[in-house]
């Protein structure tokens, strides 16, 4: 009794879309807004300097002017426009942050993928390596590395990146390992899928949500760590308008010219906050929390 084609009609089930939380079934506007904010920040980082009214390094007036219509966030200790500097500063914090995350995701992802997919001695070696990096107090050592290599944005990014990937390697390896043990991967192997195809079509896509979630949640961390670096004077050299450095060097003015340390710190805060909220949102979407 071969069933004729079409004998069993397909009752189509709804496709869960990305932007829909699985338990309430309603689109969360908050999550959309958070994601939008993330995008906006990235655009701002890319094009913010074009919007700035002044040259970030030019002295445009008297020092320590309080916020006013002329200078939205006032002027700093040598009379530069804080609004301009903050706008240019977003790029210096945000883009390196994204770079570090991207680097971590790529390097960690590849290491974790190889480790999880191949197993055996490759896994052992890569895992020991990952463990080594994981057990080092990363931020502390990165600080030492930057101190040794000399302060600067590139060095900071390199130093942080060196310690940022192991976490992703762990996530990726864990995901791949669980996926690889699932029958569907076994079935693909039986179906004769090549190793490359197994990796790229059957394993990798399954690990993507976890990695994306981890990465978005991580943006805030990186932003704060970079702020810490520039606060410690390890970031871009003066007169670069780095937010952490701007805040750090004017901390002493907290009681006399509050906007100098507070505005850049609040901008860092907003960046991290947007990233945090968006991270939660992405997690809700992708992991149906």
């Amino acid at each position, binding site marked *: 009794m071969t069933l004729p084609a079409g004998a069993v009609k397909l009752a189509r089930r709804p496709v869960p879309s990305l932007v829909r939380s699985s338990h309430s079934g309603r689109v969360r506007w908050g999550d959309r807004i958070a994601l939008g904010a993330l995008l906006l920040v990235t655009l701002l980082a890319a094009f913010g300097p074009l919007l700035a009214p002044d040259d970030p390094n030019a002295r445009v007036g008297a020092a320590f002017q309080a916020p006013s219509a002329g200078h939205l966030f006032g002027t700093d200790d040598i009379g530069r426009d804080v609004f301009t500097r903050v706008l240019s500063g977003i790029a210096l914090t945000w883009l390196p942050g994204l770079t570090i995350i991207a680097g971590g995701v790529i390097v960690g992802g590849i290491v974790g993928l190889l480790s999880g997919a191949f197993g055996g001695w490759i896994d052992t070696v890569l895992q020991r390596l990952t463990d080594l990096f994981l057990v080092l107090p990363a931020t502390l050592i990165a600080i*030492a590395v930057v101190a040794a290599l000399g302060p600067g944005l590139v060095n900071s990014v390199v130093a942080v990146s060196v310690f940022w990937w192991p976490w992703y390697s762990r996530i990726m390896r864990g995901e791949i390992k669980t996926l690889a043990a699932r029958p569907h991967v076994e079935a693909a192997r039986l179906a004769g899928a090549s190793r490359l195809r197994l990796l790229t079509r059957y394993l990798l896509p399954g690990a993507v949500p976890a990695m994306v979630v981890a990465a978005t949640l991580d943006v805030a961390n990186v932003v704060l760590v970079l702020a810490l670096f520039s606060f410690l004077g390890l970031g871009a050299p003066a007169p670069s308008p780095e937010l952490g450095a701007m805040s750090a060097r004017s901390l002493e003015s907290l009681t006399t010219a509050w906007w100098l340390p507070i505005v850049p710190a609040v901008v860092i805060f907003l960046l991290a906050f947007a990233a945090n909220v968006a991270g939660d949102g992405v997690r809700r979407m992708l992991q149906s929390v």
Partner: protein
Amino acid sequence: MKRFLLLRLAGLVGVLVVMTAVVFVLRQLLPADPARAAVGPNAPESVVAAKRVELGLDQPLYLQFGRYLDHLFLHGDLGQSSRTSRPVGGDIIGALPASLELVVAAVLVAIVIGLVLALGELLLPWAKPIRWILLAGASAPIFLTGLLGLLLLWFKWHLLPGGGRSGLADAPTGPTGFLTVDSLLAGRPLLAWDAVQHLALPALTLGLPMGVAVGRALWSSLLGTMRQDYVRTARSKGLTEGQVVRRHALRNSAAAPLSMAGLQIGLILANLLIVERIFAWPGIGLYTVQSLGTDDLTAVLGVALVTGAAYIVINALVDLAQAVADPRVSL
């Protein structure tokens, strides 16, 4: 268990060797000359040269490295600080209790915050704002939270003291090195209270990010756990939602937040540098900052090794805690 301990110990030694090697390489790259750092800017070159010989810096790097390892592992000797001209080990032991007390307090704060965050979100519908407040707290750069806290709670409102470990003189340097504990042991509750007050703000500043991170991890794994069959079983036993969470869900959700806590300890160690500076807390963070400022690399290396070791031990403890929380995990 024995196997676990042995493995961890071997790992510890391995990591310490690697860290030492890394720092030795860094030291070569570092622009500052340790001999010059040890004698001050005004000293003539002859004095610097003599110091260089004294510190063994004229020898090949592998010899220096070998000597350092030899001293470290056979004598527990971390070398001599060029800044204080004292053994680095002694300096660190002197500074460690203060940091340890602060970190312990911060972790306690973090646990409380984490629990409040996760359980509040889960059990109390009206607790939503807590999440936003805490999320905001975790998004603030640590120097901002620290300074604003200090500015408001101490300078403006005089609610808390403004830095240091204690405002009172002749604090006991008693057995534990924890001022809170020692004062109690010495029968001086007032001093202990004073110490707690001094501890409050830095611990909060330090513990907030960890608390939120742990709380989020706990929350999301609780959400998963609450959908487990055994939670349904617990509910079917007629337990209240609170009992269900406390007795059945919490322990089963411990793994992820514990890992997160282990990870966050690393961040706390880095943040110690800033927090101890802001709050004039006489611990290893302050010691490190001052040593960095004077290019005292032996001291920095010593601190890195000690904190690295501590970090590894803490993470081993985290693994232990996970095994305790879940009987299925064997070490």
